């Protein structure tokens, strides 16, 4: 009886998130401490489960120092889940992930209609394990301009030996009154050869209104291909390699990789290789990676003759006793602009009470050391960085990271410290000093501190409260 009644209980969960931020910063000129507008942000999330396999979610938010402090729709979906399929109508959500493991033909940012949060609205249907078939259908209508995108993918697993899939994608990339579509057809194949050895290949062809018309363009210049052999395992060696050939006019507006506005990697042909050696009976890994290709583009200029780019990377990673580990790598890139060499050292120690990390990197070795010989770099520089976590009590944590850079007669620095208080349920309180943004991408490897020699410690105090309910 009880269970019968439970079926009629309609579960609704109502959650939310609150954030308050106050900060003051010492300004350069005139010198005074400026208290910025306190920021208060609130978000409500509502999840409904009208059936065992249906879900409705929507959230709305308000930000105090934005326009009107009004509540706005944040994101939402209505979804039906089955054992082997799911159907969702969604608005303003990141639901554009589609598998393209070698060519990376789909990037969510190029489909969601905005870099700073999705604005598209659409429908997505996925199915899997249906007589060996799997697939995805996706349509999205952009809301900030008159564009849209469609993706269809159908594949089949033939046991564990072979996987085949076909994908068709279409995007109105211009958003004019009349649609202007970039269309991609692609085929993916994955073959299990022996133990850990797989052969994979992904090939695609593109149709884009900006491609030159007529017979001047050959079909292979509109195609892209990657063939990969993955993990040949031999006496502690793991070897993988791939060959790729991207046509000069292979444009894919749905990706970053082949998008003229982003990474524009079309017009390349080359080889990528990777060897990983696990030293027997020692916690030592040795990794070597290489990438060599010829490219027809000195972007955006299409060259008459291609030039070659090579990239080599070697790394040794060692773990010692008592939580201490070390990493060393050397990296070299040779391209039209120069010969770029970097070395990196890291040592790290960790125990339940604290964790410390020390990094040192020398970047662009030999560049501009004896006078200005390269315009594309500031020259050789070294950056020393450290990062530290200390658990003062079980609810109080101290964290800091900082970096010092010097080179070419310049010195620069960055520092950030934080006291985190997690005393109260569902809440976090942070007291912070400094600017975290310069070193937030792996400390000394962050371009903000490794490539920008005018980085300075910012006198900034911030109190940040986060509360979940």
């Amino acid at each position, binding site marked *: 009886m009880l269970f019968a*009644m439970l079926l009629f209980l309609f579960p609704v969960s109502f959650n939310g998130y609150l954030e308050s931020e106050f900060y003051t910063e010492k300004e350069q000129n005139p010198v005074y401490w400026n208290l910025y507008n306190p920021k208060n942000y609130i978000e409500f999330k509502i999840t409904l489960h009208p059936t065992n396999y249906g879900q409705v979610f929507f959230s709305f938010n308000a930000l105090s120092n934005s326009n009107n402090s009004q509540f706005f729709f944040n994101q939402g979906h209505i979804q*039906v889940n089955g054992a082997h399929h799911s159907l969702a109508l969604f608005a303003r959500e990141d639901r554009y992930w589609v598998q393209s493991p070698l060519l990376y033909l789909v990037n969510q940012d190029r489909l969601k209609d905005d870099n700073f949060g999705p604005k598209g609205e659409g429908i997505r249907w996925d199915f899997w394990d249906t007589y060996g078939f799997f697939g995805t259908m996706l349509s999205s*209508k952009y809301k900030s301009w008159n564009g849209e995108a469609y993706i269809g993918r159908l594949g089949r697993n033939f046991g564990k030996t072979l996987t085949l899939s076909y994908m068709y994608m279409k995007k109105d990339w211009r958003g004019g009154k009349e649609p202007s579509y970039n269309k991609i057809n692609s085929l993916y194949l994955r073959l299990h050869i022996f133990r850990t050895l797989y052969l994979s290949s992904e090939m695609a062809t593109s149709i884009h209104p900006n491609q030159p018309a007529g017979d001047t363009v050959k079909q292979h210049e509109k195609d892209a291909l990657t063939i990969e052999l993955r993990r040949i395992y031999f006496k502690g060696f793991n070897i993988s390699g791939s060959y790729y050939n991207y046509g000069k006019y292979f444009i894919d507006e749905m990706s970053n990789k082949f998008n003229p506005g982003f990474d524009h990697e079309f017009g390349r042909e080359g080889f990528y290789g990777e060897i990983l050696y696990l030293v027997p009976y020692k916690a030592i890994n040795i990794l070597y990676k290489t990438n060599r290709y010829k490219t027809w583009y000195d972007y955006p200029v299409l060259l008459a003759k291609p030039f070659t780019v090579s990239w080599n990377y070697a790394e040794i990673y060692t773990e010692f006793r008592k939580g201490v580990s070390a990493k060393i790598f050397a990296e070299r890139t040779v391209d039209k602009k120069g010969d770029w060499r970097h070395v990196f050292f890291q040592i790290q120690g960790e125990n339940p009470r604290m964790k410390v990390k020390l990094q040192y990197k020398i970047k662009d070795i030999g560049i501009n050391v004896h006078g200005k010989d390269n315009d594309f770099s500031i020259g050789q520089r070294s950056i020393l960085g450290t990062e530290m976590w200390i658990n003062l009590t079980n609810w109080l944590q101290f964290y800091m990271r900082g970096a010092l850079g010097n080179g070419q007669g310049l010195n620069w620095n960055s520092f950030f410290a934080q006291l985190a208080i997690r005393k109260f349920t569902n809440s976090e309180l942070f007291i912070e000093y400094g600017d975290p943004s310069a070193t937030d991408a792996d400390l000394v490897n962050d371009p903000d501190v490794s490539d920008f020699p005018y980085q300075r410690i910012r006198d900034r105090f911030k109190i940040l409260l986060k509360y979940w309910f």
Partner: protein
Amino acid sequence: MLVKALVFLLVSLPQGTKDGVEFTYFAPDANSVYLVGDFNNWNTSKTPMKKNAEGLWSVVIPLAPGKYQYKFFVDGKYVEDPTNPITEGPYRNSVIKVAQDFRVLPPRMSNNTPMNSYVTFGAKAKGFVNADKDSTNHYRLMNTETDVRMNVKVNIKDEANLLAILHYNTQQGQDPSTHQIPFYFERARLNFEKGHLHILSFYNMFAYESPDPITLVGKVNEFSYPLGRGEQGILWEIQPKVSHITFLYSNEISTGRDLAFLRLSKDFANFYAGLGLYISHGNNVEYQVVSPDSERINDTTLLHFNTYDDRYAYSIEFGDKNSVRFQFLEGLDKKRANFYDVDGTKSQQSPINKSWNIGKWYKFKAIYGNEKLAAFLDLEHHKFDSIFVPLYGKGFSNLKTGISIKRRHFEAGLSEHFLFAHKNSTKWDALFKMFDIQRLPYIEYPLLGYDRYTTLYAKGNVDILSLLKMRLSMQTARYAINQPPRSDECILQLTLPIKRLFLDYDLRYFHIKSSYLNTDRDFFDHYIQISYRFSQYMIAKAGYGFYPYNLLDEYTERREYLSSKGVNLTQLENNFRGIAGTIEQGEKDISNTKEIRLWLELSF
């Protein structure tokens, strides 16, 4: 261990026995368990429970019928009943209801927020994906839309409750510059009822419709809803014994019009008497609309008019409570609708209206009125439906002369309606009028804008087997004598029937629905829809064709919809007077519309 697990399965909600209600709690390792609740004033030592060999604690206590909160007091700690999902209050006390003979009623959840029993959330969520042919004749995603209306109900004790509705729509609400979609506060209501007193405070939500025969406030027509929609205000009702006192103050949100209404009525042995007072003061509102006969002069002719709306009236009503009522009304209507043509000529309307309805087997209603004076007589036969065609427009003064005869046969689901209305006054009021919209889903539009017309129609439902339901709605004949505004010319119009055919197949979870609209020529408007009901809360639908909006609810959307399909807006406005005209124009544009429509709907 196995025995313990089996015992745990036997643990259930409190159950009725012949000696009382039995409470059980499974805790083999506990040293002491007491039952506490409002039946023993939460005394932690009064009702000890006994443990059996398997570790199941139980006690039987006699309880009178009613609702009780309880908990278990286990080794000095309060524990809620793990078998009972229903809790109340900030301490999450378990709740049971006990009926006669110690029967325990199954638990019912009165709200869906376990943290707080006074708050209930509800929502109506819809997601649409439409694909339609574009100018290159290819299917393309058109107007995707997500629409959510969320309501929050708060029960403040038993007497008062609060309801608030929030709304967003990704299709309509988006800010063109920031692309943000605001969450609107759409409607709210605070209701208080205790004894003879009822207080209702409302914001953009239905509040009141006066029961007096002329319906001094709260009339329905196409663009004005029952009083409360688009308004904010407060209503007081006091009903000591057989008297009834109503006071209403309301402010129209968009125009700022203020309205005050007072009605006193008293029931005597066989009759009742009432007094009414109505005062309203409205802001001057300017309108700009397309002239109804502009197509014959100039397609873009706009007609401007402004109105102001000061009214005052008092009324006396008396009559038999059920069948015969009479109302006398005297008032002053300062409403002026000043019309301006493009050349600036001004014309003013002064309405004088008369209206008679006769019925025997049928409903009988008579109305007589002019600008200052109105009388209403209402005779009803109890066997028949009491829906009265609103012969008059917004406000008490725009009355018409007319006869309305209506017969409805409930068993067969058939109804016939004969209507004759004469109006020689404000044309514009007639233009924006709906006639018995529930009965006439489509063909009211031919009537709009006509001053004199007669229409006959029939409508039938046929059930073939239990699966297939067929509905046929047909206008059998119509003629209209049209006297357009600002013209002495009359047109006699006779059109052939417009037929609408619905076919429904009900297959338990699946429902197939199709509709066809037949005009003078071919079936032009057809639509097929398959819906699947996942549960009582959730439905998925897929449709193909020209989606027919429900005119009753979504008239304005229909206009936008037709316009989105390429029908010229001016043409649409001109064709308010007749869907035949709309069809003629629309047919060209819509004949290619083969929309694929997919949506999910949820409400609870």
